[in-house]
């Protein structure tokens, strides 16, 4: 760079001379210098080449440095603080989870649990396998109860009238109540409580009764399963509670009893029932289930023989059975023709299994049906064998009696402990108004705002069971502790604390109360026993003694004479599989859990049969108005395959008028048509069309398997004949081409495992026993809880964007007469919306199958990922590296099992109603603060734009490996002890249908299961070699039955499409004879 000097203006040689100044005229050296410099002193120093370059250099260097400096501070991770304790708490190690034995109280029992705490917050609950009456399984509600703890709509404040007050003020008020009502012996004081069998509560209730003998004690539960105990007490003439031992029964008859679905103690029933369904060899004994029911329930879905009939007509069937078995009651003439034959044959089967059979009546059935059931059981000698009785307890008054007392003005102070009577009380009681007739209403409430809260004077926030001390008895009578894992998040109280204060007891702390109750159960070293009690989670040998009973036939016949005649359309009302009676209405996991049968999320519907829908002239999604007993409700129609004609099925718990942010606007409220005299079955209903439609979010729209061998079934007879029937249904491999070298059949996708298998310590695999699985969906919620799976909302579910890693596929199957496979070369399955008009859905069998990532060895998803975000590890897992994923979704497209889930939005960061607002949709601070506490810190919380799927609970595998290696220390690490841990779904499964483990270890449970002849893989002809295999289902129909089927309907469908699997070459390994290539193997039907 050279110096650029502006050229001087050439002076004209002649002519005028112009000058700018006298200096110029005089042409002084100063002027020349000035002119040369152009700028005032100092400025042209910059034109000096060296100086200017130097300047720029320095400036750029300093800018660059500033950039580096700024850049460094900008790029550096934000400064984070490590804040250790000032004083180290004893026994606490940061990052290591701790486990506490506790229990979740249910209506009439408790589920023994082991709750996991991470850094002081409960993150997962599991069943307590040590408990004498548990296998470590839980139900879906126990799994979902964790989310209730972190519900942002929980009651957080003590409220008096409409103003917030303090805990102290509320406690002072309770003390005032105590003084006031001790003086007048409790006159005009009433308690409304939920059923419970907490010994502490019983003790305190007795204490209150002691000082206030005239107080009223009323119990209310909208779906009172206490009817079993009440019926037994009536017919056996003493206060007893029955326990149905499905495990001891070879023949089970359910009279509209949904004991696998919506009844109480479902997890225990499933465990017992499944133990009779689990078979290893064809010779093993398999129980048989007959179900007569109105709605299609989970129990009906698992039946060997199912009779669809209106729920109100089930009594006739019961009567036929009773007459046939010689129970001394009932009449064989109540039914005729095929219907009668069904029950007569059923009864004959019962007679053939005296003492090893069981007849159960549904909680929704009238007392007369229970009377018949007990009479039948007594006649069969089942009492004390398949039904055990233990001493029962009295329950107190009913809500109807309380309403009467309120209307009469006899109640001055009403104390409501739990529950939500404003929503759940029978409609004719007009509860909100009745409640207001008490001068003072004190309420222990779990939610800030609900239907009951408006008419309360004092609202005390209730503590969750994971944050309070308590006790309970499981249904076998064993005493279990309820232990807190965290201090009450919002300072909530428990009912025993309130009762203790009202009783004026000097011991008001929940811990002290429970401890005092416990001391009454043990003798000797109370402290030692207490510690063991808390450690084990139960008091050994505290189970209730069985009592022997005898049937009072006079009571039975009295109940029978009270049976009512029915006519017209009937409405069957039952608790919902997802939200129960409404208590899980604000729980996102439960709202988004597809109903095990209908597969709806976020809604309930009016379920009808195809024929009823046709008669009424309605179709799916049409909103109808049901009027019964002068009360009406509007809801959308859904045609339910297999439902009885003339029955309208509705579920409770939706359509809440006042609930939290999750439950608002979901479904319709069936409580509005529910009255005391028709709590479960209301007859004489009218249905009107409203002309409106309502969209439902269903996760599985197609009902038929279309003859494919996805779920494989056989009858027990067939299983005996063809033990490897499941493999016979494999498609045949294409013949080996002439020039082909090496292994044949050759997988479509590379198998990266072959090379690394020998070097790995373990090979993970899973086996799902379709015979044991009843489809209860506890695994889905367990997975959601363990793996931080977000909810996406109704709108997203409708778009097929649900996120659950594990789904339960439910298919309806029909017989070969009605299943019309391809006639010619081209077959078009019916469109989803046309299924509801097809006659095959009238009589169906139901099959369910848990479906999650199959962890294929030759995984189709891996080959198509452009960024290698999904790959195999050397222990056989198909793993996702979220940080690599760029969201092309190719993997999901190429997955034949459709088990991959994509985060279309940041479902964690955004509230579900503001997903489309992008960055403007923000969760409220308090909401996220609470919700994130439920997250498992061992699993990544995924963000928008990444694919995810079942990992076989990788975090559990890794921590098991790590702890085994740490234990090995300087010694040799060989492998994790066999079956020492399992996945979340397997752990939660009450049936034990899911088994996970090391398939490289021949002694592991999973290896043994996979060696069984029923073992098969789904879509095996793709040669993806799934690590998850299924054990085919075996049905056990009775040949004498009028609805006997030679082969399960799914097998009949398969047969009419593909031909008889047992006649052809059987098994996929006799390859080479077939002309059809694997992809077109459907042609096999020609053989």
């Amino acid at each position, binding site marked *: 760079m050279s110096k650029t000097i502006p050229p001087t203006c050439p002076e004209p040689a002649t002519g005028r001379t112009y000058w700018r100044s006298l200096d110029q005229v005089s042409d002084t050296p100063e002027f020349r210098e000035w002119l040369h410099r152009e700028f005032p002193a100092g400025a042209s120093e910059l034109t000096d080449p060296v100086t200017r370059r130097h300047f720029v250099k320095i400036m750029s260097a300093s800018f660059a440095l500033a950039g580096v400096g700024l*850049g*460094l501070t*900008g*790029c*550096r*991770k934000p*400064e*984070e*603080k*490590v*804040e*250790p*304790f*000032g*004083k*180290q708490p004893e026994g606490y*190690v*940061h*990052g*290591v989870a701790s486990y506490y034995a506790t229990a979740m109280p249910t209506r009439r029992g408790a589920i023994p649990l082991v709750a996991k705490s991470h850094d002081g917050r409960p993150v997962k609950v599991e069943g307590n396998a040590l408990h004498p009456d548990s296998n470590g399984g839980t139900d879906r509600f126990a799994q979902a109860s964790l989310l209730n703890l972190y519900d942002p709509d929980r009651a957080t404040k003590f409220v008096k009238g409409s103003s917030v007050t303090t805990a102290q003020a509320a406690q002072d008020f309770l003390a005032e109540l105590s003084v006031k009502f001790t003086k007048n012996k409790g006159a005009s004081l009433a308690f409304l409580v939920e059923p419970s069998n907490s010994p502490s509560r019983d003790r305190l209730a007795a204490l209150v009764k002691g000082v206030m003998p005239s107080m009223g004690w009323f119990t209310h539960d909208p779906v009172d399963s206490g009817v079993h105990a009440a019926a037994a007490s009536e017919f056996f003439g003493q206060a007893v509670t029955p326990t149905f031992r499905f495990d001891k029964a070879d023949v089970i008859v359910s009279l509209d009893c949904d004991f696998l679905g919506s009844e109480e103690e479902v997890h225990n029933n499933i465990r017992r029932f499944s133990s009779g369904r689990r078979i290893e060899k064809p010779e093993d004994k398999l129980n048989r289930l007959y179900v007569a029911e109105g709605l299609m329930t989970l129990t009906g879905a698992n039946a060997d023989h199912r009779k669809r009939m209106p729920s109100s007509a089930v009594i006739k069937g019961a009567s036929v059975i009773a007459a046939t078995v010689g129970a001394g009651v009932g009449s064989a003439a109540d039914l005729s023709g095929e219907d009668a034959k069904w029950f007569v044959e059923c009864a004959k089967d019962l007679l053939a299994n005296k003492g090893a059979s069981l007849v159960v009546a549904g909680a929704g059935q009238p007392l007369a049906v229970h009377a018949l059931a007990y009479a039948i059981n007594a006649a069969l000698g089942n009492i004390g064998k398949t039904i055990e009785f233990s001493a029962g307890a009295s329950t107190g008054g009913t809500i109807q009696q309380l309403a009467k007392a309120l209307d009469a003005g006899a109640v001055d102070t009403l104390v409501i402990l739990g529950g939500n009577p404003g929503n759940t009380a029978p409609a004719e009681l007009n509860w909100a108004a009745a409640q207001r007739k008490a001068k003072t209403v004190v309420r222990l409430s779990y939610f800030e705002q609900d239907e009951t809260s408006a008419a309360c004077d004092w609202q005390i926030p209730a503590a969750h069971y994971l944050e309070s001390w308590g006790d309970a008895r499981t249904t076998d009578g064993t005493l279990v502790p309820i232990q807190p894992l965290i201090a009450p998040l919002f300072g909530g109280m428990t009912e025993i604390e309130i009762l203790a204060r009202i009783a004026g007891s000097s011991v008001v702390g929940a811990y002290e109360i429970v401890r005092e109750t416990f001391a009454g159960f043990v003798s000797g070293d109370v402290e030692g026993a207490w510690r063991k009690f808390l450690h084990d989670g139960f008091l050994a040998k505290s189970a209730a003694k069985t009592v022997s009973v005898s049937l009072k036939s006079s009571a039975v016949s009295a109940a029978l004479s009270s049976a009512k005649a029915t006519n017209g359309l009937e409405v069957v009302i039952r608790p919902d599989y997802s939200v129960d009676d409404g208590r899980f209405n604000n729980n996102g996991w439960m709202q988004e859990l597809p109903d095990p049968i209908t597969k709806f999320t976020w809604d309930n519907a009016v379920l009808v049969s195809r024929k009823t829908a046709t008669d009424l002239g309605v179709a799916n999604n049409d909103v109808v108005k049901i009027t019964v007993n002068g009360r009406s409700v509007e809801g959308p129609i859904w045609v339910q395959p297999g439902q009885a004609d003339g029955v309208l099925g509705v579920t409770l718990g939706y359509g809440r008028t006042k609930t939290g942010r999750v439950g608002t606007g979901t479904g319709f409220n069936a409580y509005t048509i529910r009255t005391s005299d028709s709590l479960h079955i209301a007859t004489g209903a009218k249905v009107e069309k409203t002309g409106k439609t309502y969209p439902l979010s269903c996760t599985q729209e197609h009902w038929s398997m279309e003859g494919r061998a996805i779920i494989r079934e056989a009858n027990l007879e067939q299983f005996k004949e063809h033990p490897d029937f499941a493999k016979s249904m494999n498609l045949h491999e294409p013949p080996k081409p002439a020039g082909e070298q090496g292994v044949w059949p050759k997988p479509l996708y590379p198998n990266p495992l072959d090379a690394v298998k020998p*070097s*790995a*310590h373990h090979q993970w695999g899973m086996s799902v026993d379709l015979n044991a699985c009843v489809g209860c969906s506890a695994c889905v919620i367990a997975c959601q809880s363990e793996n931080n799976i977000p909810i996406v909302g109704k709108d997203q579910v409708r778009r097929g964007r649900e996120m659950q890693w594990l789904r339960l596929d439910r298919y309806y199957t029909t017989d070969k007469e009605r299943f019309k496979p391809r006639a010619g070369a081209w077959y078009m399955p019916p469109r989803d919306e046309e299924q509801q008009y097809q006659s095959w859905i009238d009589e169906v069998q139901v099959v369910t199958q848990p479906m999650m990532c199959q962890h294929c060895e030759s995984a189709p998803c891996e080959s198509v990922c452009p960024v290698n975000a999904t*790959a*195999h*590890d*050397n*222990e056989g*897992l198909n*793993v*996702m*590296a*979220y*940080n690599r994923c760029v969201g092309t979704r190719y993997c999901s497209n190429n997955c034949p099992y459709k088990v991959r889930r994509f985060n279309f939005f940041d479902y964690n960061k955004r509230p579900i109603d503001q997903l489309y607002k992008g960055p403007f949709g923000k969760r409220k601070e308090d909401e996220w603060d609470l919700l994130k506490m439920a997250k498992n810190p*061992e*699993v*990544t919380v995924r963000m928008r734009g990444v694919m995810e799927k079942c*990992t076989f609970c*990788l*975090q559990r*595998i*890794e921590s098991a490996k*790590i702890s085994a*290696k*740490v234990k*090995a*220390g*300087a*010694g*040799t*690490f*060989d492998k994790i002890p066999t079956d020492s841990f399992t996945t979340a779904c397997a752990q939660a499964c009450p049936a034990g249908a899911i088994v996970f483990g090391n398939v490289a270890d021949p002694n592991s449970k999973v290896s043994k299961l996979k060696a069984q002849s029923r073992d098969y893989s789904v879509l095996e002809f793709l040669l993806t070699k799934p690590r998850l295999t299924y054990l085919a289902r075996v049905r056990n129909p009775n040949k004498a039955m009028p609805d006997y089927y030679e082969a399960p309907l799914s097998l009949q469908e398969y047969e009419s499409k593909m031909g008889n699997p047992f006649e052809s070459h059987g098994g996929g390994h006799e390859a080479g004879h077939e002309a059809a290539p694997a992809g077109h193997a459907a042609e096999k039907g020609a053989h």
Partner: protein
Amino acid sequence: MSAIFPKWTNQLPLMAIGGAILVGTAVIGGTWYYATPKYTRVGYTPIQPVGFSHNIHVSQLGLDCRYCHNAVEKSWFSNVPASSTCMNCHNQVLKDDPKLSLVRESAAANKSIPWVQIHKTPDYVYFNHSVHVTRGISCVECHGQINKMDEVGHAQSFSMTFCLDCHRNPAAKIRPVDKVTDLNWKWSDDPIVNSQKQADEGKKLVEHLKVESLQNCSTCHR
């Protein structure tokens, strides 16, 4: 028609390409330069609220790492000790030293000392201390000669390559399990013998402990 677009617009594609190249280069260069852990972390020595010197406590006084970081063999997280741990000694030694006033207050009031975190793996990496230190990987491999540091600084780049280098060949770093917390320990003082022995003995150790060369995504990412 020609008046719709002025003539300079003919240059637009070229300008766009040129601009894109410039911006692209800047982004790539910037990411390359700044986003590498080496540049963002190594040597990072923030000022801590209490001037704790590992050099004095370990090299001069001979404390074992696990006296303070006692959870390192149990948890994924190597704990920063509670102030009460400091006070076990400092209620006798230097008990009135003004430099320790924060520790004393913290232990008395059960209030945290806000130490600045230096070593941190990203949230999507599930690093576990216990399985490394109980199986022959010394603190020094990742944290450097922390026993000689008066102020703790970031010694190694915690890039994925750094982890993988060792995971690909654990024999190059493994040492007898009882020497894990001895940060000065070597197979031999002679560097040539040392590296020879590391290779030989390391291989033997890997075989004896059955240490796998874990390079699965699932080893660290869940």
